[in-house]
């Protein structure tokens, strides 16, 4: 099994549901999708993120950590939410992504996680 990141991106200027009436059906569809992921054992983790205005960036590559308000780079698009799923191959992951895209009414990007490093050999 491979883990895949299914990410949903918001693009600046694209219309987004704002009112509760618009959002409610999407929330419900995503809930149903999440339940299905759990029921079929594909669920690893998922979550939606607050708007990009809530982001803070930390850079500790230098001597002192620097904390700044905002995303790490100015961008016209940003991560809005994601699922981490487990699937046997890309075809299975793409099927989940198709359902996820329908549920959240947005484009979904599919990326495989790198293999975990081999577990420690027993001593």
């Amino acid at each position, binding site marked *: 099994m*491979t883990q895949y990141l299914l990410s949903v991106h918001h693009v600046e200027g694209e219309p987004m549901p704002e009112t509760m009436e618009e959002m409610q059906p999407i929330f419900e569809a995503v809930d149903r999708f999440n339940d299905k992921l759990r029921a079929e054992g594909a669920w690893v983790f998922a979550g939606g993120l607050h708007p990009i205005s809530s982001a803070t960036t930390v850079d500790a590559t230098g001597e002192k950590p620097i904390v700044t308000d905002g995303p790490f780079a100015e961008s016209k698009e940003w991560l809005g939410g994601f699922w981490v799923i487990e699937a*046997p*191959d*890309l*075809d299975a*992951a*793409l099927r989940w992504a198709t359902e996820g895209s329908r549920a959240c009414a947005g484009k979904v990007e*599919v*990326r*495989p996680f*790198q*293999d975990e490093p*081999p577990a420690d050999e027993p001593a």
Partner: protein
Amino acid sequence: MGATDEIERIYRAEYGRVVASLVRRFGDIDVAEDAAAEALLAAVERWPVHGVPPNPGGWLTTTAGNRAIDRLRRESHRGAKHRAALLVMDDTPHEPTGVVTDDRLRLVFTCCHPALAPEAQVALTLRLLGGLTVAEIAQAFLVPETTMAQRLTRAKRKIREARIPYRVPAAEDLPARLSAVLAVVYLIHNEGYLASGAGAPVRAELTGEAIRLGRLLHDLLPESPEVAGLLALMLLSEARRPVRVAGGELVPLPDQDRGGWDRDLIAEGHALVRECLARSDRTGIGPGQYQLLAAVNAVHTDAPTTADTDWAQIAALYAQLEAVAPSPIVTLNRAVAVAELDGPEVALAMVDRLPLAAYHAWHVTRAEMLRRLGRSDEARTAYDAAIELAGNEAERAYLTRRRGTLRAP
């Protein structure tokens, strides 16, 4: 033919089968390709001395398999990839299960996976199923060899990292996935039929390779109507190849020397089209786009002269195609038949409505219709635009001569 040529020929013919079987066994395309290359080296050493074995394909597969195992064992302490390949190693001989009858069928679906870029699908298919070298593919698509090598490496890495499966798709996905495979084969054929870039206008090595892939698919999926349709379409186009270019100029269908058409290919294509029609009658499932295009070609190749062409039939086939796979290019082709049936004025009105100003064939069609209507100045302008947009020299030469036969401006 020298011994080396003979080995090269066998290797090319068997390459797809050898690599497909190794990919199944070892789950890794690079391992399969390396092992196939080692088996070729062994054949080059051994066959000239001991003779070509009775089943050269089987010999290559066994030898490559043994080399792959040797190498994996040697390197297993080093690479996780190789360790993984040993773990997934599947030694069962391949058996027909459902529609899967051949490892090559799985491999073609991997190569033509929609998660890969179209140009990568084409390159992988030619490399792994067709056995073309990277240099040959690069030359066929007029890109530097390093570019093509990178394209292939990137595609293979994606297959490995994203786990693009090595499998015939599930029944519900099969029609869509098969149409992606057919699109790749048709693209290879079209690039050979009328090259888009500089160089030879017709590339027999590409049309030939596309037909070889088409025959392979037809062998693997004999019941698929669209596979048969695509093969028929390619055979009937190929039949006209010997007389499609003369004296460095493209020769359009009405002017072609019909005595130069390849009668064997036409007979084979017609038989496939008849098979498709009979199947469609039997199943009640209407023909798809490749079968309809094959039928159009069958009507053309059935006519002893251009004047004898059954234009009503051709117009009806394009109308069906508009329903199955609508596109302005299909309508443009129907307009050509309509010009023969209802006159150029009706047809030109159809053509003028199409959003194809960037497509050279639209300008060619307009030019010919305007010529027939005696609107010479407008025809000249249309030829000018067509010549500007035409991709290869043979077509420009033909159009320039055609333009030259208009009355002086």
